[in-house]
């Protein structure tokens, strides 16, 4: 018997809901907030420019829209950070994220093509690293987990590479 393929009862299925997720280090939230602040600062130039061209009512409306967007983004960042986390199982990895739009992405190890770790200058300053898991279908089906401690990211990479090379 090469392939075991027995009938499963619903209750026998391994449930993804029951796993524990590992959170990111707090530094990752700080880094995201810092990036947000930098983007806001850059956008404020655009904001000041409008001051010259528009009247007060239009300014007020735009300011309100802007404020609304900003508070939504902040809500997402602060509430959403607690929702982020990854979970390893014997045969797959799951990453969950998002408050307003929550998603859980799972990739089985036997569908992984390769994985890599990257570190930009900002994440180096925070002592963080990203892990990318590639599949065969192109960018839409890849997984990226940013904001991991370097040793953790590398351990994950080695584990996934090891696990995915036993298939083929």
């Amino acid at each position: 018997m090469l392939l075991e393929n027995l009938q499963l009862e619903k209750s026998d299925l391994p449930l993804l809901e029951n796993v524990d997720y590992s959170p990111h280090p707090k530094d990752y939230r700080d880094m995201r907030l810092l990036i947000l602040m930098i983007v806001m600062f850059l956008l404020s130039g655009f904001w000041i420019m409008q001051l010259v061209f528009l009247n007060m009512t239009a300014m007020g409306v735009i300011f309100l829209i802007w404020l609304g967007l900003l508070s939504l983004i902040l809500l997402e960042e602060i509430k959403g950070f607690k929702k982020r986390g990854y979970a390893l199982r014997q045969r797959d990895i799951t990453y969950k994220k998002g408050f307003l739009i929550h998603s859980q992405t799972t990739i089985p190890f036997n569908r992984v093509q390769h994985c890599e770790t990257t570190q930009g200058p900002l994440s180096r300053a925070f002592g963080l690293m990203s892990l990318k898991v590639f599949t065969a279908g192109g960018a839409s089906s890849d997984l990226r987990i940013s904001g991991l401690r370097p040793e953790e990211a590398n351990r994950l990479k080695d584990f996934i590479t090891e696990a995915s090379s036993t298939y083929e």
Partner: protein
Amino acid sequence: MSEYKFEEFNHQNILGVVIIFAQSVRKMLNAYLAFFAYSIFSDGIGKYAWWFFGISLVFTAVTSVLKYRNFRFKLDDTQLVLNSGIFTKDVMNIPLDRIQSVQMHQNFIQRILGITGLKIDTAGSSSEELEIPALKREKAESLLELLKGKIRNEDLPKSDERREESSEVLEKKSLKETLVNLDFKAILVLAITENHIRNGLIAVAFIMGYAGQYLDYSEQFVVDVFDDYAPELVESGIALIIVFVFTFLFLSVLLSFIQVILKFFDFKAEVDGQSFYISSGLIKRNEFTIPLKKIQFLEWKTNLLRKRLGFESISIHQGRSVESAGKNLLEIPSCYSEQTEKVMETLYTELVDDDYFFLLQPHTYQRVFRALVLSLFGIPFFLIALIATEEFVVFSGLYLVYVFVMIAAAEKYYQSINLWVNEEVIIYERGWIFPKRTVVKLHKFQTVELTQTVFQAKRNICHLTFSTAAGGRSFRFFDKNEMEELRDFVLYKTESFTGKWM
């Protein structure tokens, strides 16, 4: 078949020079078209343009000969090797297990010369096209057979028990059966029932995009002409619109006919236990071989007219790299229910019986959301019309009618959504004007994503998106508990699958 040897380096047929030359000239014309068009109409540099053109032609001829001389290929047990390049020598080694499919391919010139090109598709490789453009037909056929044989050998499982079993299966299934063979009448039916408006719009978009390249040159010309005729154009306003609409419709229908006849002339699809074989085309003749294992998923599509006549088309989605998106998409344009059944039986061996399926339907909130989105989508148009004409009552009334129609349409669409699951496949049906049915084997999944917005959390609804190596589909607005169970089931199936999947 054995008169050709591929173990040592082979050259192409000598006529390959002509084909390489034709390809290069076409590339050159494409690149310089705007320049030539411009220089012919402007007096000063016209003469030099002809010189330039002549010299380029001679240069192209010389490089074609060199390209031909330097292009060599060989096939050994594990790989196909292509040598090419004039100044920079390229050696390309293609491991046989990376080859997705091999196609014979003839364009107009190749047809006249009695020469066949061989195209090789690899999984996830770069956008570089792997092609042996000029081989004698018999030689191409024998190389194709050899390649297919070798690829097939690698696919066979190693354990003896399996090999015996599969050779038995091979014997039983190695007879090719004709699946679809379109005669001219069938092609006409196909052409009449095309979605003409979509074809027309695509053509317009294509022409706009292509014209955009030469806009700099043609803009002045268009502006001049327009200025001359503008008063008449404005005067004949409404008549012009009607003429435009009719011309558009007429051209769209004409285009559908041309497209369908060019693409599906003498269409033939065959199937055995290993692969689909598809050949079609009037001027450009294509032959495809698609190993069944490499199919990621199938999608049946139809429209109201075709449904009436009882046939659907099947799109075959294979694994693809990002660059060649859509290139590997093949179509069987016309399939009646018995042919559909045949395909299902060939591809999906287990449990095709209806009893084993269980059925999921989306949450009723799906239609509310769809009706809402469709209604909101109409607002800008009606608002613009209202402001432009100031006919408040008329357009409010029309908008109300529009909203009711959209609610009815959303209801119809909601009724049409069905998600069938059994031990082997997921079947996702939806649509009533353009019904679609996606069939995917459970072990083809490579990413599964469950998404839920805060607003959906209360109602316990979510979306489930699956991706295969050929892209994915979303099941939207389903019950979260059911989707979680489906996800766990799909993951279990994928993770416990040990065979080849791509």
